[in-house]
C-alpha cells in the first residue's frame, strides 16, 4: 500500500517537473519559433509550433528597421565598461571591508547595504538631476558613471574575501609586499570564482540596461539595444516576427554566456544570497 503510494508520488513529481520546465521555457521557445515565421504565420490558428519554412530573412529585415549596429555597440560598450568598473571597485571595497579594521567600517558597510534600498528605479529623478548638474546628460559618461559601483557586488566580494585565510595576507606583508600589491597579486588571483560570478551578473544587468539610458540618452547615437527593441513597437506594432527576431538577437550573448558559465551564474546568486 505504502509502496504504491510512493510510486504514484514519484510519477507525480516527475510530471510536475516536466510541466514546470514547460512553463519556464515555453515563452523562450515561442519567441525563437516566432522569429523564424512569416508575419501571417505568427497569429495562425491552430497554433503552428514550428514554422513551415524557416524565415532567416527576418533577422536582416529587423536589423534594417533602426541603427541596430549602433545600439548593439552601445549596449556592449556600456556593459563592458560598467562590468570592469564594478569588478575593480567592488573587489577593492570588498577587500577593505572584509580584512581591515578602521573607524566607521561598520558604518561604511551599513551605508553600502542601505543603497540596496535605493535602486535606480526609486532614485531615478534625483539621479537624473545630479547627472544634469555634472553636465553629463546625453553622453557615455552619463550612461556609465551612475552604474559603476553596485552594492550587491561589494556584498558578494566581501562575503568571499572574508573566507580567505588571513595568513595569506600576513605572509605577503612580511615578504614586503605593498598593501595594493597584496590586493593585486594575492587577493585577486584567489577570488577568481567570485570575480567571475560578479562579472557575469554585472554584464547581464548592464547589457540589459533600459531605464537609465531611456532617461539619460536623448540622441539616437547613444541608445542601447533594449531601447531600440522597445521602440520597434512604435515603428510597426504588427511586425511581431521581426520584433521577436530582434529579441532573439538580444538574448543570444547572454544565452551563450549562461551555457558556458552556468555554474558561475548560480554560484554568484547563491553567494550574494548567503546571509552573513
Amino acid at each position, binding site marked *: 500500500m505504502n509502496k504504491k503510494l510512493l510510486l504514484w508520488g514519484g510519477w507525480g513529481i516527475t510530471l510536475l517537473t516536466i510541466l514546470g520546465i514547460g512553463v519556464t521555457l515555453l*515563452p523562450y521557445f515561442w519567441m525563437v519559433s516566432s522569429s523564424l515565421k512569416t508575419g501571417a504565420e505568427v497569429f495562425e490558428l491552430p497554433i503552428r509550433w514550428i514554422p513551415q519554412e524557416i524565415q532567416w530573412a527576418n533577422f536582416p529585415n529587423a536589423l534594417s528597421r533602426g541603427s541596430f549596429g549602433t545600439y548593439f555597440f552601445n549596449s556592449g560598450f556600456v556593459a563592458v565598461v560598467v562590468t570592469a568598473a564594478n569588478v575593480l571597485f567592488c573587489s577593492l571595497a570588498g577587500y577593505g571591508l572584509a580584512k581591515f579594521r578602521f573607524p566607521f567600517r561598520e558604518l561604511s558597510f551599513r551605508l553600502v547595504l542601505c543603497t540596496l*534600498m535605493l535602486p535606480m528605479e*526609486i532614485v531615478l529623478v534625483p539621479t537624473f*538631476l545630479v547627472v544634469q548638474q555634472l553636465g553629463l546628460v546625453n553622453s557615455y559618461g552619463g550612461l556609465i558613471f551612475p552604474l559603476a559601483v553596485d552594492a550587491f557586488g561589494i556584498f558578494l566580494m566581501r562575503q568571499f574575501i572574508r573566507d580567505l585565510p588571513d595568513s595569506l595576507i600576513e605572509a605577503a606583508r612580511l615578504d614586503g609586499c605593498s*598593501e595594493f600589491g597584496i590586493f593585486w597579486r594575492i587577493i585577486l588571483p584567489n577570488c577568481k570564482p567570485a570575480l567571475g560570478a560578479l562579472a557575469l551578473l554585472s554584464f547581464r544587468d548592464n547589457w540589459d540596461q533600459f531605464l537609465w539610458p531611456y532617461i539619460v540618452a536623448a540622441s539616437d547615437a547613444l541608445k542601447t539595444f533594449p531601447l531600440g*527593441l522597445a521602440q520597434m*513597437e512604435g515603428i510597426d506594432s504588427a511586425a511581431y516576427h521581426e520584433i521577436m527576431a530582434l529579441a532573439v538577437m*538580444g538574448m543570444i550573448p*547572454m544565452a551563450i554566456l549562461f551555457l558556458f558559465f552556468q555554474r558561475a551564474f548560480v554560484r554568484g546568486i547563491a553567494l550574494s544570497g*548567503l546571509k552573513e
Partner: protein
Amino acid sequence: MPRTHGVVKAEAAVAGGLPRLRHWTAWPWSLSRRNRLCLAGFFFVLPALIHIAAFKFYPLLQAFQLSFYRYDLMSPPVFNGLANYQGLWENPLFHQSFWVSAKYMFGVSIPEWFLALGLALLLNRAMPGRSFIRLAYFFPIAMSQIVVAMVWKFMYHPYGLVNTILEFFGAGRINWLSTEETALPALIAIGIWRGIPLFGVIYLAGLQAIPRDYYEAAMIDGAGAFQRFVHITIPLLLPTILFVMVISLLSAVKVFLNPLVMTGGGPSGTTRVLPYFIYETGFTYFRMGEAAAASTVLFVFVFALTLILLRLLRRGGVQ
C-alpha cells in the same frame, strides 16, 4: 629577489638578526603598523564610498530638499513649503499608485516565497537528468528584462499564445493588457514567473548547506518526511527564507520596466506603480518638486518596510 634596504638591515641587526614586523615598505613611514592598516583599509573602500555618496545619498538628500520647491527644469526652483506633499495627499492618482504598488509587491512576492521553495526542494532531490533539469530551470536567470517584456507582450496579445491556449481549454478571449481587471494580474504573473528560478537558486544553496547527518539521524529515530521537513529543513533554512522575503519585496517594489513597456501604466492607471507615477510626474509633466516629494515618500516606505523585515531577519537568525 626580495628588495633590501639599509634601514631594514640596521633594524634587523638591532633586533638580533630577525627582521622586525614593521617593514620598511610601510607607507606612510611614520605611522604605526596599526594606523597604517587602518588607512590602507579605508583607501580600499574609499572609491566605492565616494560613488555611493555622489550617486545615491547626495541625490537622495537633494530630492528631499527639492521636495519643498516648485521646479520645472527650466526656471529656477521656487520654495513652496509643504505644498508638494499636500498635493500628493490630495491627488487620487497618487493614492491609486500607492495601492497598485502594494498589490503588485505582495501579489508577486508571496507566491514566490512558496513556489521558489517548492522548486528548490524539487531540484534538491536525486533524480535522473538532474543537471539538465537544473539547466532548464535556471536558464531564465540569464535573460534580460526587456526581452521578457517583449515576449510576454506578444503572448498577451488578443490573438497571442496565452489566449490560444486558454481557448483550447474553453475560455474566451481576453485583451489581457487593456482590460482594467486583468492588466495588473497579467503583470504579476510575469513577475512571479521571472522570480521563481532566481529565488530557487538562493533556496537551493541554503538547502545544500544543511548537513546530511541531521536527516540521517532523524531517519534513524523514525521521523517521517514531513516531520523532517518541519523540524530540520524549516528551522535551518529560516535565515535564507527571511532573506528571500526581504529581497523579493525589494525587487518587486521597484518594478517599472514592465508597466512602462507593456501597458504604459494603463488602463486607467491600474498598472501605474509608484516608480511609474514618479517618472510621469517628473519627466512627462516636469513637476520635479512633486516627483521629488513622491520619491521621498516611496523611499520612506521602502526604508520602513526593510527595517521591519531586517528586525524579523535578526530575530530569525538568533533562533
